[in-house]
């Protein structure tokens, strides 16, 4: 007993104690629900069996049923479009902004700080703002497009099936750009200045320096950001709830919103869990990419 006590005060026991606390926290609040969710996707769950853990085991029936539903493939496709377009938009604009603020000019860091406003705002608030901007009759976006002559008639962003998904994507790009910008700025500032000087003396022009120095040196940061972007966009729920609610007719529905819809509005908990399991697989993949790219930092 005394040995254990002294180990906790001076030795490895203290380290073990420090690690075990967050591990226990993670296990109780993330691990168990995850396992419960996976188990549920192989069971038959209804309102009456919801309270007990021992429910009839149905094997892959939930998965087979799910892929038999007509809306499943379009929703998966929507999710793919949403994730790809959001990450691409957030990354490209974020990288552009990061490069822009990297050039130091008076007020650069102050201005960059202002961009973080979008990041600290709750998704529902952002959704509400974009509802006004995207509004069909009096929205600012339609006004701008109409006045510049890009469109002739109003676009009903939120209710037109061909635009509804893009309405959420635009809002999500706006929401995630600043996060990308900050992480990329950190990555850029980590590149030693003398590499650019050496490259300049070696005869590289600005474009060549970007391709041969900046991009390769940013590889781990970019890998991390794309992986985090995948995780965050698959978590994006608030904007769907605030802007389109997945409609009209599932044209802007994505798996994360659909899982919630199935579980808590249609009370089909088993199918909700099934979709969640499919998403877990993707997120796990992204996590592996993230962990690997942050581990292989290229630094002289």
């Amino acid at each position, binding site marked *: 007993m005394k040995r254990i006590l002294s180990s906790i005060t001076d030795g490895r026991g203290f380290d073990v104690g420090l690690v075990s606390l967050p591990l226990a926290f993670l296990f109780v609040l993330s691990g168990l629900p995850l396992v419960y969710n996976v188990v549920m996707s192989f069971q038959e769950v209804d309102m009456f069996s919801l309270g007990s853990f021992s429910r009839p085991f149905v094997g892959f029936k939930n998965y087979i049923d799910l892929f038999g539903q007509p809306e499943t493939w379009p929703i998966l496709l929507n999710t793919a479009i949403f994730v790809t377009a959001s990450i691409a938009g957030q990354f490209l604009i974020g990288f552009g902004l990061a490069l822009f603020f990297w050039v130091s000019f008076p007020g650069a860091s102050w201005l960059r700080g202002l961009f973080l406003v979008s990041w600290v705002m709750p998704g529902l608030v952002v959704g509400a703002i974009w509802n006004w901007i995207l509004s069909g009759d009096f929205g600012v976006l339609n006004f701008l497009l109409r006045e510049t002559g890009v469109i002739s008639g109003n676009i009903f962003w939120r209710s037109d099936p061909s635009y509804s998904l893009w309405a959420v994507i635009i809002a999500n790009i706006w929401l995630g750009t600043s996060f990308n910008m900050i992480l990329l700025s950190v990555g850029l500032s980590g590149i030693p200045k003398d590499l650019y000087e*050496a*490259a300049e003396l070696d005869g590289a022009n600005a474009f060549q320096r970007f391709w041969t120095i900046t991009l390769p040196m940013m590889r781990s940061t970019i890998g991390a950001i794309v992986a985090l972007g995948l995780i965050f966009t698959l978590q994006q729920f608030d904007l769907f709830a605030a802007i389109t609610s997945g409609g009209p007719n599932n044209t802007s529905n994505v798996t994360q919103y659909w899982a919630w819809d199935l579980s808590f509005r249609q009370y089909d908990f088993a199918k909700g869990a099934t979709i969640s399991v499919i998403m877990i697989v993707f997120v796990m993949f992204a996590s592996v990419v993230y962990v690997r790219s942050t581990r292989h930092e290229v630094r002289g």
Partner: protein
Amino acid sequence: MTLQIELNGVNKFYGSYHALKNIDLAIEEGTFVALVGPSGCGKSTLLRSLAGLEKISAGEMKIAGARMNDVPPRKRDVAMVFQSYALYPHMTVEENLTYSLRIRGVKKAEALRAAAEVATTTGLSHLMKRYPRELSGGQRQRVAMSRAIIRHPKAFLFDEPLSNLDAALRVHMRKEIRALHDRLGATSVYVTHDQIEAMTMADHVVVMRDGIIEQQGRPLDLYDRPANRFVAGFIGSPAMNFIPAVVEQDGRHLALDLGATQARLALVETVPAGASVTVGIRPEHIRIVGAGQGALDIPVGVVESTGSATYITSATQPELMVVETGRSAAVGGELIGLAIDPAQLHLFDAETGNRLGIGRAHESEKFAPRAAPHPAAATFSPS
């Protein structure tokens, strides 16, 4: 000899800070020039201005006869070895070497051949596939130099390239760099804060302080005839002793002010009587004799022996240092006499610090510029 680098009235301002003040410098083709001075003296700024990494505020800068003021670094055709080496961490040694060639669109096979050739001479052949992080400090240094060599530039610029190496390797690389310079017949500008590096490596030493050139010339000229007190104190190790003194009425003797004691020294030249001066005596030009037999007596303070030489510091104010070759019998607290050769004295104006017209007996000796390759050139062998 043609002029490879010419600076006329170069000035550099950072806001209101005047970093370079009216720098005039002419460097002949094939010379090894060292810019030396304490931190903040402007030597690195001058080098970076030559590279084009800093834009000069006024004056004119020419490389190989062409005006360079507004030419971007990539078009100046100069190569720089950075203090941090600045190797591209995501590229192998080979890719680091061929980078400048690939940028210029040289064919891959040709670039690889050039890299292999340079690597042979610098002893990097077996490291071509490694990344910089897998190399030792000395190897990285060699990659940095090879990267410069492969380009055959108009001038090599070195920015304190040895300061990240340990003492033994530094001495070794000193010879290698000089040998390389001789072999390539290149023009080199070498920035260092270490006067030993400057003295041993350069044909021409430029001593800078506070943005101005205090003195420039051949290394031994600077040692023998420092133009002012600053250069006198900067060049030479251990540093020159300075003692305040007044010229006596006859103009041929000095009354040294050693705090508690006084001493007289004879002069070889006549100087204006009554002038307040600072006498400079190099520690290696003082001979230790018995008490009362020399020009002055001092009590021995600290005795440090390196084996080959002994450094003896006096316990008086101002402190005097004497270097004696070999072992010394002096012990702390003992009174010793110091014999000083009047011809070895340096006199500086007490106020301005400028050298007063007293010369060395053998100063007329002139050295021809080094025509034959440095002896180390033949034995250049990377370890």
